[in-house]
């Protein structure tokens, strides 16, 4: 992919000049380089103080016990052994987060893809339909959560609605066993955000692929699985990786619902330890575990996807 920077400068062209000119060239080059460093310096100052510094600081902190009032105490690997010990809430949080991620990410992608297929047909009012599906994904999370808290109240509109079909709705966010399904439902409401990406991808699929497969006798459903899906696979991969990382970073929903351990997730757990109990060392250890998990998931998905994702213009071995 073209992520690799194309920074090979056109040396040959510049080198041809005679000596005094080259000296002048060098001075210009040096000036250009100086401007380069000047222009990228804000980012790298931020990188130093707000990224790499804090990452190392967090690693260091994770080996200490510190409540921000007394001086930090070096405890070695104790935080990590505590985090990873059998009865730690970490496993509850990881379990809930995993459950949420593994259900909501595939469901969200399937729903987004389904909507995209519908919208990609030759239909009237396409813009309006697209807007309707896209709208929920533009709403700030806080407003979404408050709305759904109200919507999924035990005697709320949603239960009233499915009651029309004779289904007795659960107590959702009040009932610990229904909190996670409630969260997933709420997440699916924003699936239209992914639809936009899929639609853009579908526009880019060359029509001759469909024509060729139609000549071979493939119907629309067959075409969906043999043409559309493979051609969209890079975008699907992008959504899978982003979705997984995003669900491991879920915070606002869970914090606002505030139902103890039934929906405790990784970041709320970290937040609780750091800013409610001021266990900065322990919370840093959680942060590092989360970091490692996210990197590992990304690596596994990318490695595994190499088999399935099709890039146009890629040389296959």
């Amino acid at each position, binding site marked *: 992919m073209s992520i690799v*920077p194309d920074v090979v400068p056109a040396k040959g062209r510049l080198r041809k000049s005679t000596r005094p000119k080259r000296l002048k060239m060098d001075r210009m080059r040096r000036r250009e380089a100086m401007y380069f460093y000047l222009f990228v310096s804000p980012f790298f100052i931020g990188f130093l103080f707000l990224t790499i510094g804090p990452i190392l600081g967090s690693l260091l902190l994770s080996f200490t016990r510190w409540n921000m009032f007394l001086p930090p105490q070096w405890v070695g690997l104790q935080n990590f052994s505590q985090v990873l010990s059998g009865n730690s809430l970490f496993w509850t949080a990881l379990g809930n987060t995993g459950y949420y991620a593994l259900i909501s990410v595939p469901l969200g992608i399937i729903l987004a893809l389904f909507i995209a297929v519908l919208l990609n047909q030759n239909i009237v009012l396409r813009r309006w339909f697209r807007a309707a599906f896209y709208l929920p994904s533009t709403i700030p999370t806080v407003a979404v959560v408050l709305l759904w808290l109200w919507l999924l109240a035990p005697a709320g509109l949603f239960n009233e609605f499915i009651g029309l079909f004779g289904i007795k709705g659960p107590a959702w966010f009040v009932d610990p066993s229904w909190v996670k399904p409630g969260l997933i439902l709420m997440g699916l409401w924003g699936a239209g955000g992914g639809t936009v990406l899929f639609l853009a991808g579908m526009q880019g699929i060359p029509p001759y692929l469909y024509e060729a497969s139609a000549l071979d006798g493939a119907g629309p459903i067959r075409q969906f699985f043999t043409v559309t899906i493979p051609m969209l696979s890079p975008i699907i991969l992008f959504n899978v990786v982003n979705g997984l*990382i995003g669900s491991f970073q879920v915070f606002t929903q869970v914090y606002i619902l505030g139902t103890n351990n039934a929906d405790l997730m990784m970041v709320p757990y970290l937040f609780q330890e750091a800013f409610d109990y001021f266990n900065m060392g322990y919370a840093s250890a959680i942060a590092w575990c989360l970091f490692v998990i996210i990197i590992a998931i990304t690596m596994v998905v990318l490695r595994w996807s190499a088999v399935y994702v099709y890039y146009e213009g890629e040389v296959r071995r």
Partner: protein
Amino acid sequence: MIEERKLNGVRLARPGRQKKPYWTVGKVIVYLFLLAGGVMMLLPLLWMITTSLSSSHYAMDFPPQFFPKQFDWENYVKIFTESGLGQSALNSVIITVPAIIGQVFASALAAYAFARLRAPGKSVLFIIVLATLMIPGEVTLIPTFILFKYLNWLNTFWPLIVPNFFGNAYNIFLMRQFFMSIPLELDEAAKLDGLGPFGIWVRIILPLGKPVLAAVAIFTFTANWGNFLTPLIYITNPHLYPLALSVYTMTETGDNAVLSVPWNLIMAGSMLLTLPMTLVFFFGQRALYEGSNVLGRVG
């Protein structure tokens, strides 16, 4: 986006197919799904609007009344006079506007350098920029909090504004891709006219890069306007709460929970929080499409 659709519409109507009637069984099913899905997507939103317009009495009605018997515009006055959301909205603006300016210009400056200027070590630096995309914000959360605490920035807007002035990797990458598509001849011509790198950035790159600047401005707006975690950590003084935090605290009525929660006011507050975001998305759609289109090509 619209042109593309139309183009596609034309493309789909292949010569062989034209004889087929428009309304086939498949079409009907597609429309049924679209209508049902569209209604399901919009109903919650409509519920937000009607609740925000119902008096507290009707909001508590059981079974829930989808359309209030009378519209109560009072709620939209009350959220300013009683819930103090006016101050919070102002706070949100005070945070968001400088954040957008800082983010756009810092990212554009670095992106221009990566797209156009040559310097030793450039490719390594660019790989570092891309690598930061992999780092979840949670890892840096605690040390950053400690840093800002020692700077005495708790209960100020600085922790929410200042980090934007360093740019971020995603925006730099997006802008670099866009800037690289601007013809190099323009730079060369400007150089002959005696412009330096800064002049080229101001006179050539920024004007021609407007779509991507707008896209980054929109991303920054949405990220900051709805942000909940960061203000929750840094701001404890209710007078300094941004809108998202204030609307949330309306649910904490103190005493006996659920019943005393003023859902009609909360929904009015949520509308106030939602509206700017939705408007920005819809008016910025074109810029978003043109500006972030480059990413689609990257795959």
